[in-house]
């Protein structure tokens, strides 16, 4: 028994070694797999380490002041001093404020009512209104938590005020969590998930489409036929637009039925901009397909593209909390724009006037990817 096992050993060892050497050689030839092995851990580390911040500071805030007073200024200064609020814009009307919040350009709106200072000096405990975009509860949460300290520090140095004690603050900060007042996670996740799922499936579908022709040997006769690269691309992409639509309809229906996620805005606008988003992702996947040598490479490339989409788009982590470079990368990803669109329409009731910049960005990304793909598509076997 043992002698048999021992006698078998050297054979098993050399066979295992044969396999090992073969795998190693093949791995070494496949440069993209090699690159993936290096790229993915490095990128993950960089993104998680530097870009992602779950307690974001310096969040864009708009101010709507109905009076110009010393007290108002010191309150704004105190807000800025918390380092959570960056006062980026002064608006003149409620409508402007709403527009900024719906389009996602600011996360907070501070409203100082008329006669605030007078009421304060009379000891009437007036209210300061802070509206927060709670469609992303994480981004809004910590900043709102920091508000408690603001009241005291804001007025500490203002001696002309009546008895400010800790027990009874001189004024009240009224928080208004908009769009998702109860901070329900599914309200935040489901719209974003719509974008994530569409990105993943659309990318993979088209990333495989050209490489499949190459791998199965059908590319040669396809190229010998009188068909233009643009015609090939449009013909290959279009069926998946329909599939994307079916997916979107499924997610929205389930979101509404199971998770009670509303669609506050226009369903037609959502459908139109989703088509644009689906198109952008299909075009990007297709352009990967024109670069990749085989289906595995196409999948790897899609995955490498998918990763920053998840991390930098604002789906998982607050976009406003990321450093500039990460935000810049984020702006180049279709998902970032779509998440703003889909949260805007579904939760905030945003209209096209609030979202035209995002729509334009999606259109641009799609056209860039399509142009690249059509130029990359080889018309010969060279």
């Amino acid at each position: 028994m043992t002698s048999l096992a021992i006698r078998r050993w050297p054979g098993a060892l050399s066979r295992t070694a044969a396999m090992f050497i073969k795998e190693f050689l093949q791995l070494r030839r496949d440069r993209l797999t090699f690159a993936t092995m290096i790229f993915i851990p490095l990128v993950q580390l960089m993104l998680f380490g530097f870009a992602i911040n779950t307690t974001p500071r310096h969040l864009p805030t708009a101010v709507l002041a109905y009076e110009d007073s010393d007290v108002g200024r010191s309150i704004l200064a105190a807000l800025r001093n918390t380092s959570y609020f960056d006062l980026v814009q002064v608006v003149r009307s409620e409508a402007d404020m709403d527009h900024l919040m719906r389009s996602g350009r600011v996360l907070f709106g501070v409203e100082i009512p008329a006669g605030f200072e007078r009421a304060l000096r009379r000891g009437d405990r007036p209210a300061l209104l802070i509206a927060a975009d709670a469609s992303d509860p994480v981004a809004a949460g910590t900043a709102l938590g920091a508000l408690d300290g603001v009241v005291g520090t804001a007025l500490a140095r203002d001696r002309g005020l009546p008895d400010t004690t800790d027990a009874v603050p001189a004024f009240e900060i009224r928080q208004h969590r908009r769009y998702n007042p109860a901070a329900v996670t599914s309200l935040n996740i489901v719209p974003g998930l719509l974008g994530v799922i569409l990105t993943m499936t659309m990318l993979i579908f088209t990333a495989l489409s050209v490489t499949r022709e190459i791998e199965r040997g059908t590319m040669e006769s396809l190229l010998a036929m009188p068909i233009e690269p643009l015609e090939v691309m449009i013909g290959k992409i279009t069926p998946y637009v329909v599939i994307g639509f079916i997916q979107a309809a499924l997610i929205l229906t389930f979101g509404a039925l199971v998770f009670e996620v509303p669609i506050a805005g226009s369903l037609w606008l959502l459908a139109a901009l989703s088509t644009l988003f689906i198109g952008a992702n299909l075009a990007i996947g297709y352009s990967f397909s024109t670069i990749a040598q085989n289906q595995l490479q196409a999948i790897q490339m899609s995955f490498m593209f998918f990763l920053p989409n998840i991390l930098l788009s604002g789906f998982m982590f607050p976009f406003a909390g990321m450093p500039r470079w990460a935000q810049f990368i984020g702006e180049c990803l279709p998902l970032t724009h779509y998440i703003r669109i889909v949260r805007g329409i579904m939760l905030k009731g945003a209209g096209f006037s609030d979202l035209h910049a995002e729509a334009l960005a999606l259109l641009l990304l799609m056209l860039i990817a399509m142009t690249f793909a059509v130029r990359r598509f080889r018309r010969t076997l060279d």
Partner: protein
Amino acid sequence: MPTARDGNGKAPRNGDIVIDVEGLSKSFDGKQVVRDLALQVRRGQIYGFLGPNGSGKTTTLRMICGLLTPDGGRGTCLGYDILTERDEIKRHVGYMTQRFSLYQDLSILENLEFVARVHGLADPIGAARQAVLRLGLEGRERQLAGTLSGGWKQRLALGACILPKPDLLLLDEPTAGVDPKARREFWGEIHKLAADGMTVLVSTHYMDEAERCHELAYIAYGELLAQGTIPEVIAASQLTTYTVSGPDLNHLAETLLGMPGVDMVAPFGTSLHVAGRDAVALDRTMARIGEGAKLDWRLSSPTLEDVFIDLMSRSQDNFR
């Protein structure tokens, strides 16, 4: 397109020459695959393109139909420039690839309809159905192309190629791995097409197929070594051949190799083909070997295979 064409718009520019290329060269990764190749094929001919594996046959076919850009050289295919008028070439040439390149996961009919639509035929479904009938595949048109046997796959591929009624057919080793009966039928079909005026350029390395061609060209290591009709090619080889039969031919073959005048020895069943270019030296050698031995040896005319194997061995020598 500023081309002189007759009423049906299909006549090539320079009369009856369908393919006219010269100086074609192509290399991949620094390795020269085709060098300075010239080829002329006349309308309605079945032109055989012969050569060993890796000799540059496929590369040449691909350059002619616009799938590869030659590094050097120029020429026309159906009167269209192979460098600048590829789109036109693709419209009028049927190219059958070496590897089965129809969609395996589409049915026979669906594949044919796809081809018909890409070529913009007026009634793609009707055209596909007609092709099914012509192929003798009625009743099986819903079968997936991937499930067909090798011979049927080739017939289907040919059927797809001729569906848009091309003026020129390029076939790249169309009968590789196909049984003799299917091969014969395939060639019957090709001759019918040629009789109807289609020009066919077919690459192969089967000698019996070469003999079915009107004219042929032999290419090895990227160079064209012989060209013409079969008698022309054989005459041009200036090969003298003896057929030897008798006992212990294996031993004899070894002895013969290296003797003066003997360039090639090849066993053919129970006999031996001995060939050489130097007729005088070969005659003398054969006379010496034949003496006393119980051998039956006689002068015979060289076969195409003798010629090609001789050409190939010589070219290899040049190559080194």
